[in-house]
């Protein structure tokens, strides 16, 4: 899989330690509970979850790979494809839509050179800029409906982001925002 933005998946001692710590949160015979925590560790460190990572999680927890893959494929928050270095999730649900989140998405795509028509809402809803710096997707309600439109950039949360101040948002991360 072509990806220059994130390091390749490798289990370092730190990652293994963190995995063990998470596994320890659940009863000894219920290691399967640690599927999501381990997948979060992988996505946090490597940007997305590929089949090598999935198989590692399965072997670590004594599961069949499909038992991990069914979780990876179900949750919108887990990614099987590399996002951009800065991944933006814009809320599309009712209250934010009423404040103009669709227009915000359009503006962000303009500013970052992203062509959303190439993304597929079922299998890969993420659209990445040609340079790999930015990516976007719509997310469902982010629980801040009074301050819409809201979006997340990686793990940062931003309120009242409009087409007019969208450039300021991008500048916080990378002032050379056009790809």
């Amino acid at each position, binding site marked *: 899989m072509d990806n220059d933005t994130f390091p390749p998946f490798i289990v370092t001692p730190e990652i293994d330690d963190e995995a063990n710590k998470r596994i320890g*949160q659940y009863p000894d015979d*219920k290691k399967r509970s640690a599927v999501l925590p381990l997948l979060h560790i992988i996505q946090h460190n490597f940007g997305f979850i590929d089949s090598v990572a999935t198989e590692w999680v399965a072997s670590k927890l004594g599961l069949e790979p499909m*038992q991990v893959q069914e*979780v990876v494929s*179900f949750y919108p928050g887990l990614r099987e494809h590399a996002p951009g270095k800065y991944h933006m999730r814009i809320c599309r*649900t009712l209250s934010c839509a009423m404040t103009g989140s669709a227009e915000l998405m359009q503006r962000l795509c303009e500013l970052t050179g992203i062509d959303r028509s190439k993304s597929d809402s079922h299998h890969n809803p993420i659209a990445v800029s040609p340079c790999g710096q930015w990516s976007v997707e719509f997310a469902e*309600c982010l629980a801040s409906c*009074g301050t819409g439109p809201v979006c997340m950039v990686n793990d940062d949360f931003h309120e009242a982001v409009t087409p007019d101040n969208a450039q300021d948002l991008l500048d916080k991360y990378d002032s050379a925002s056009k790809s």
Partner: protein
Amino acid sequence: MSNITYLPGKEPDQREHRLIFKNIDREGWDNSIDCYIKDGGYEQLKKAFKMEPQAITNEVKTSGLRGRGGAGFPTGVKWGFIPPNNTKPVYLICNCDESEPGTFKDRYIVHQDPHQLIEGMIISAYAVGANTAYIYIREEFPEASGILEKAIEDARAKNFLGDDILGSGFNLEIYLHRGAGAYICGEETGLIESLEGKRPYPRIKPPYFPAALGLYMSPTIVNNVESLCHVKHIIGMGGEEYAKLGTPRNTGTRILCVSGDVKKPGYYEVEVGKITMGELLNDVCGGPKNGRKFKAVIPGGSSAKIMRCEETYEIKNPDGSQRNLSFYDIPMDFDTIAACGSMAGSGGVIVMDDSRKISWVLNNINHFYAHESCGQCTPCREGSMWMRKISDRIANGEATPEDVQTLEDVAYQIDGRTVCAFGEAASWPVEAIISKFRDELEAETSEENEYLSDEAKRQLAFINQ
């Protein structure tokens, strides 16, 4: 109690009663354990340990606390569902998945006042006999996850968690478990399946009531963040005193989250039933935007049935007589809103003014449910997608008048026929919007679309191939 002031511009409205949200936007406040303890935090925990667990449950029953996650089920009663001669481990789960569209309250508790939740959880765990508790937190709250992990560590360091808490003989560990962006994990059995490491396909109830067969098929109590915080205050002031807040059978306070077409959207904590819809929208939230009139309100998160602002409702008084209640006079409680055909739900009040096309609103909502359906049962999996396709056509001006009836029929074939309440959540918006705005929807349809829409052309081509 020291004098509490709030950050400029974030002062509570005079009609609020800040109990759970006492420390939100508070001047000089931070989310550390030291700040919390200095303000009297964890004293209620010490008081709780002087009581028997059953006595705590009784206080919660006396208080009349109803779940604040959306169902409004009496919390004390839920706790009482654990089988009496149970020998399996009991689990307490805090549902911090806050994903009901229109709801934004638990967010502030976990970011700004995490120890209120932790103290509430310890008291609740002690009451129900749980030695392990999990906070299931939505993935989109990464900052709060870090805050809660630290808060748990700090609480452990002071022996509020761990073994033999404060010499009580009670052990408790709290762990954080992050979700991954699925609304269905807010459903308590979907959450449990997710916690077990599987796809979050909800379980059918009966028999899988979590209090009997929950996490790992052990008795499990799942409570909303806000509900668990109320427990701390109930122990602090006593159930009887708490029940004086609010109104009969609708006691205490709750946080209302107002969004949409009002001048002052935001969160407001009020005594349940002591403020009317009109007072909330016009006085507290400043009324509609300039030049606009209120059109419709969804009072309890997107799953709640929409209400028209010009409606009058015929409801029954406790003594059996009838009365007429206009929309703006509805008290913001659980029972009256239910009597008017909707639900107070999660407290997410979404307001629409006369600039909004109802077909657009309906379509936005249908996209949400079609996306979030877990897919396990046929009526919801097929129906939610079907309803979305029809409302797509209506919103794009490509629907026929029959489409509106079909949409309604599909909704009623989902409602009541699914494994979990998501079926109702997906179908009620459609049922209510069609029931109240049928004319407006049908006005956007045309008989001609039977032959002109892209979908019709595709179908004709398929039939004629």
